[in-house]
């Protein structure tokens, strides 16, 4: 099992917690207002090693902001040793993308790890009636609340070397894929390091940024497949 720390960032009310709830519990609560109680969740996914076809368990330790981002009071502890960050904006809120951009800057300055995987995520896709996808149903146009274009966010993400997706925590559209992609990406980045460690018997350095314990996956087990 590989364990990674994933942090959520973005303006309040863009749906950070809803995304995590969709991912971890596969549920959506219309009335979720702010984050209280559980701001530390874990979820395990399976990915495949592209060379050996081995199943790899990846556990995400997911840190929610617990509202501390609101008055610019996120502690340095929050970013520490993060392996991945989900920077979320709201497709229906004009300035939430620029806020997301400043979170990306903040992340890059605070996290030393060059390997940090940043995923820019536009949430509330369910509120956006995508004209191209629907084949131009004009009568539904008034329901389209999208104000941030795909192109705008996509070109920014490309420019900054971020992964990018538009999703809906409400319907679940695209949520699993985001975490799956992060898992695969992290595995790809960390694999050489893991192999090196394996060969050196055991790197017993607890001050290592990533606490990774390798468990030999059961390669021929037909029951261990991706869900």
């Amino acid at each position, binding site marked *: 099992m590989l364990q990674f720390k994933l942090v959520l960032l973005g303006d*309040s*009310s863009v749906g950070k917690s809803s995304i995590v709830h969709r991912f*971890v*519990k596969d549920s959506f609560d219309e009335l979720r*207002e*702010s*984050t*209280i*109680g*559980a*701001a*530390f*969740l*874990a*979820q*395990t996914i399976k990915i495949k090693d592209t060379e050996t076809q081995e199943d790899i368990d990846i556990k995400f330790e997911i840190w929610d902001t*617990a*509202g*501390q981002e*609101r*008055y*610019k*009071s996120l*502690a*340095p*502890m*929050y970013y*520490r040793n993060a392996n991945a960050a989900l920077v979320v904006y*709201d497709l229906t*809120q004009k300035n939430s993308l620029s806020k997301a951009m400043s979170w990306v800057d903040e992340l890059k300055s*605070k996290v*030393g790890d060059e390997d940090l995987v940043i995923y820019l995520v536009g949430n509330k896709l369910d509120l956006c009636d995508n004209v191209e996808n629907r084949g131009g149903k004009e009568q539904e146009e008034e329901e389209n609340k999208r104000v941030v274009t795909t192109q705008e966010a996509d070109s920014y993400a490309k420019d900054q070397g971020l992964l990018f997706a538009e999703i809906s925590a409400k319907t679940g559209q695209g949520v699993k894929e985001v975490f799956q992609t992060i898992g695969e990406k992290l595995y790809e980045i960390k694999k050489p390091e893991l192999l090196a460690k394996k060969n050196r018997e055991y790197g017993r350095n*607890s*001050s290592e940024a990533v606490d990774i314990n390798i468990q030999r996956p059961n390669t021929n087990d037909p029951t261990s497949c991706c869900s």
Partner: protein
Amino acid sequence: MDQETIDTEYDVIVLGTGITECILSGLLSVDGKKVLHIDKQDHYGGESASVTLSQLYDKFKKSPISKEDREAKFGKDRDWNVDLIPKFLMVNGELTNILVHTDVTRYVDFKQVTGSYVFKQGKIYKVPANEYEAISSPLMGIFEKRRMKKFLEWISSYKEDELNTHQGLDLDKNTMEEVYAKFGLGNSTKEFIGHAMALWTNDEYLQQIARPSFERILLYCQSVARYGKSPYLYPMYGLGELPQGFARLSAIYGGTYMLDTPIEEVLYDGEAESKKFKGVKTKLGTFTAPLVIADPTYFPDKCKSTGQKVIRAICVLNHPIPGAGDSDSLQIIIPQSQVNRKNDIYIAVVSAAHNVCSKGHYLAIISTIVETSQPHVELESAFKLLGPIEEKFMGIAEIFEPKEDGSKDNIFLSRSYDASSHFESMTDDVKDIYFRVTGHPLVLKQREDSLQATT
């Protein structure tokens, strides 16, 4: 959408994010209180923060070093987390207990401090922490070792309700001096028991009843027994992680955090003698609560000096401490009598192994209670133990305590951080304030919501 107006009414307002305030904020939020936590500074930790090297230069030096020079010498600024107040956690101490019960251990990783040393006649020696170590310690002669062994056996086998384990001593009647006499311990043994194990900073304890000393020695021995090398723990990334961890606990339970928010005005209800705390005015608005908890810097008029000043010297080294092996962390106690003082001098050493400085560096923080008009000279004996020093930052802090208990005006103030080498007096303050604020003693329960993991 969610940019709704900020809530303005709270159950408790907490000012300052030092460790004392953050623990209280966390505990009260877990209790279901609606907490607003404000700091005038833009970072967590208040007086007990860990800061970067550039912040340290800004704070202590009149002519700061250039960024280029600093980085050439000391590496990246973000690798540095230097404690302003040096302390270690006792493995079996109350802070560890609070951390475990609140699950804040989830956010902070700890490392064992590798050694505990005591200074004697110009050299440092490892403090023996159990019967076996006592036997092999070069600190004592052969006969003294046997006496020390007997003493430690008495400590470890003492049971309150079994009179035969007391060996005729009464912890509440006999003084510690009498206890030492019973075991026939010599002056130098008394010195390291009293100062390096019971961690008294002076010799007043000798004439006091033995119980507090007994409890301190027991805490020391039990703490060592847990992991072996020393009785101390230290958090990765520095002590500043502790307030951050408790602030996160508070936030998770609904606490609202506002850093970089100076208090423009404190509002009161009533007049003169009978006036009570009502709220605070800030750039983000006016917030009210029936009571406030704050560190002394927010209500200087309501605090008085204890008459004590602590001098702290933060020293950056590029080598381990001479004579302590390659230890990545240790405590050295210089007992007062060894250097003709009234108070002990402490040296806390941590290093890159704790992610508090860049690779190859060590941080040694010397502290003691000021006794003369030339405080920096008082630290000479400690500087000598460190070998070459790359950089030195010195500061003197006056120790303040609240004038009143808060029952009259609902303003509950913490004490300044003292010269002790651990957090036991700080947690006493936390418990005391908690009791005064809530009317009931602090009872630690395990958090119920533990890890919400699926699969």
